């Protein structure tokens, strides 16, 4: 009896030690795990961090601080300044920066010999203009794009007509064609747009606007009815309110239509405009595909029920398909927003003046004159990237799921 107990005691101690060792091993592995994750996080974050920090330093300190990694990334608070954003003409002011722009100072590789040396291109860049342009392009492009592409996807997924299968295959096969393959011929096409095409495109946009109005009218009317039931509002007032909102919400589309009609009436080249940067990229096979896939997944019973109740196809589109498709609308909205905001190649080719140039092209100016004002450049970069980052952090979930379904732009 006694010997049995002793054995068990020994075994218990052994088991206890083994368990402790296993626990330690688990903890060590976990630490290594987190260590690796943190190291990778540093690698992924340091360029952005550097940009942010450098934008808050005056130019000469940006260079000087690069002597050591810590100083570059973790500056001392006393050095921080907002002058790159405020004082140095990012907002179109005239004063020269106080730090680092004194005569005789040398940073980068060129000494400053005259006051005009400090007025690099970046001081004369119309940042607000660029920002406004980018914003314009993005808003119009995204809203019109969502509407046009989802409509076509609805036609492909839900309506019945001859040749539907063939058409769908054709459109989906167009996904392969990259934008870069079309850029060179489009340059000529857009520079020498024929009158016929001008009017055709105007007609297309007018039809699109009309459709948007019908759809919006329906929706807004029903939502007003829901909020103010029964006869609280005389019909005329309700119509006016509806009309107001219809015109307001479809403003981007209306603006684009007006631009193109204007262009058709004036003739001439499409270069140096907004519509040349937007219109060619409204209809996009991949977005259509995403909508199409999603619409296929919505059960047809809803459609059938509404159809029997007398709804028109367009009404079915708005009343049934749209509310159920919020995820795919968010996905496409995000993809198109990223596309238009970061578009570089085409705007570079079709705008040479600053009136319609977007932010992306503006930043390529940094090469054109020395001395290079790194502080200002980083400030510019920050102002372009930080809004996107903030939007991303807020709408993370949508972003991640949309990017997952989109593949890649290398």
């Amino acid at each position, binding site marked *: 009896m006694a010997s049995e107990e002793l054995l068990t005691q020994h075994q218990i101690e052994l088991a206890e030690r083994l368990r402790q060792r296993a626990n330690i091993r688990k903890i060590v592995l976990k630490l290594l795990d987190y260590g690796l*994750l943190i190291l*990778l996080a540093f*690698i*992924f974050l340091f*360029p*952005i961090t550097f940009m942010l920090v450098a934008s808050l330093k005056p130019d000469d300190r940006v260079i000087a601080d*690069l002597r050591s*990694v810590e100083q570059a*990334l973790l500056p001392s608070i006393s050095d921080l300044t907002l002058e790159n954003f405020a004082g140095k003409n990012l907002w179109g002011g005239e004063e020269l920066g106080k730090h680092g722009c004194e005569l005789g100072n040398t940073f980068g590789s060129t000494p400053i010999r005259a006051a005009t040396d400090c007025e690099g291109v970046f001081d004369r860049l119309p940042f607000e203009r660029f920002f406004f342009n980018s914003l314009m392009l993005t808003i119009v492009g995204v809203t019109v794009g969502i509407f*046009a592409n989802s*409509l076509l996807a*609805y*036609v*492909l997924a839900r*309506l*019945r*007509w001859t040749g*539907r299968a063939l058409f769908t295959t054709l*459109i989906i096969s167009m996904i*392969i*064609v990259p*934008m*870069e*393959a079309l*850029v*060179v*011929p*489009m340059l*000529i*096409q857009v520079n020498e747009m024929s009158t016929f095409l001008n009017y*055709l495109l105007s007609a*297309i*946009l007018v*039809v699109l606007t009309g459709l948007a109005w019908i759809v919006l009218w329906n929706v807004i009317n029903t939502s007003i009815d829901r909020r103010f039931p029964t006869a609280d509002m005389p019909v005329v007032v309700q119509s006016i309110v509806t009309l107001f909102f219809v015109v307001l919400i479809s403003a981007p589309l209306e603006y684009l239509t007006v631009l193109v009609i204007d262009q058709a009436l004036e003739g001439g080249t499409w270069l140096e405009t907004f519509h040349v940067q937007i*219109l060619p*990229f409204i*209809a996009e096979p991949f977005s259509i595909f995403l909508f199409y*896939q999603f619409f296929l997944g919505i059960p047809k019973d809803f459609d059938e029920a509404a159809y029997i109740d007398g709804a*028109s196809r*367009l009404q079915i589109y708005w009343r049934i398909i749209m509310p159920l498709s919020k995820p795919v609308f968010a996905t496409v909205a995000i993809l198109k927003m990223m596309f238009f905001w*970061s578009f*570089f*190649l085409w705007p*570079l080719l079709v705008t040479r003046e600053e009136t319609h140039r977007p*932010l*992306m092209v503006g*930043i*390529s100016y940094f090469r054109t004159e020395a001395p290079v004002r790194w502080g200002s*450049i980083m400030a510019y*970069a920050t102002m*372009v990237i930080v809004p*996107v*980052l903030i939007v991303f952090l807020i709408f993370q979930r949508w972003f*991640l799921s949309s*990017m*997952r379904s989109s*593949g*890649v*732009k*290398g």
Partner: protein
Amino acid sequence: MFKKLSTRSKNRSRDDTPIAILLGGPTVMLMIVFILLPLIGGFQLSRTNKGFNAQEPDSVGWNNYNQLLSITIVKLPPLPDELPERTSSGWYSEDGGETLSFRWRNLDEIGLEDYEDYRIWERFSLFVNDTQYAILAKDPLFWTALQNTLQFVLIVVPLNTCLALGLALLVNQKLRGIRIFRTIYFMPVVTPVAVISVVWFFLYNPEVGLINEMIETLSFGKIGPYEWLQDPKLAMPAIAVMSVWRVVGINMLIFLAGLQDIPDELYEASSIDGASSVQQFRFITLPLLRNTTIFVVLTLSVASFRLFDQVQIMTPDGGPDRSTATLVWYAIRKAWNESQVGYASTITIAFTVVILIIAVAQRLIVRSDSALEM
């Protein structure tokens, strides 16, 4: 009687053609005007000598293609036994002993008059038994651009795929706060290429760039500063590394989705049977990720071929020794800087053909139909 009624209403083939045309017509027309027309126009342009001006172009038939694609390999004649004497300033000419400045001999001087439109492609040289072979091409820069683009793709695709898979595995763990890391690894994706290229341009600066600084700090000064964007051998890899940094997040998510599709029971069952994690990875994870991997590799390849933005910002002239000239860069250069739109269209067509080949390869390789669906 009821049956007949219901079949009648269903088979009353709702022909929605009119409304289909109305609703879908505008978008379809937009695609015809801005996708189909340029495709056809590009091909037509490539057979002309159109410049970026208002003049009517002339048709040049297939000359552009001839100019772009002509390539051949020749055996160079051996060096003459007696080379003219070289002085400090150059070669003596052969008659009279006058001093001339040094120059490469033209092709007709070494007996290759047949190839007068060609130039030697300087990236290639092959010695077999003391005979030198050279590649001659009518447009060496095109082949350089093609090679550069291929090099970029061949660096980016494996690196990106492996890293993405690794990150996906890391991020798939059930650790606390893992979602924060996932977001961080994804963050570079949302930065616009043009702008982040400027930041990286600064980071790659040989004297003051942070990358060299970090390497110096980590290696205690042993590993010298590199001229990332100025060295012909390093420029393209440098751009490749930046591109991988920016894009790996998306592929990480794709792999993550693929990983999460693998049922846990497979892992549980195999570990009961005594499988190690490495074995689990080899025999469960990898095979079941096959379609995902193919999808990633092929979309990444097509996307990488389109490299332009980073190159234009970081090395607008095509880089040291044209080492970062890519196909798209070359086409734009010809069209916009040199106003040779016809020729640029030819380059574009060549580029499109390459892309189509890759895309078709994807269709053929993938077995299941659900490759496009994620």
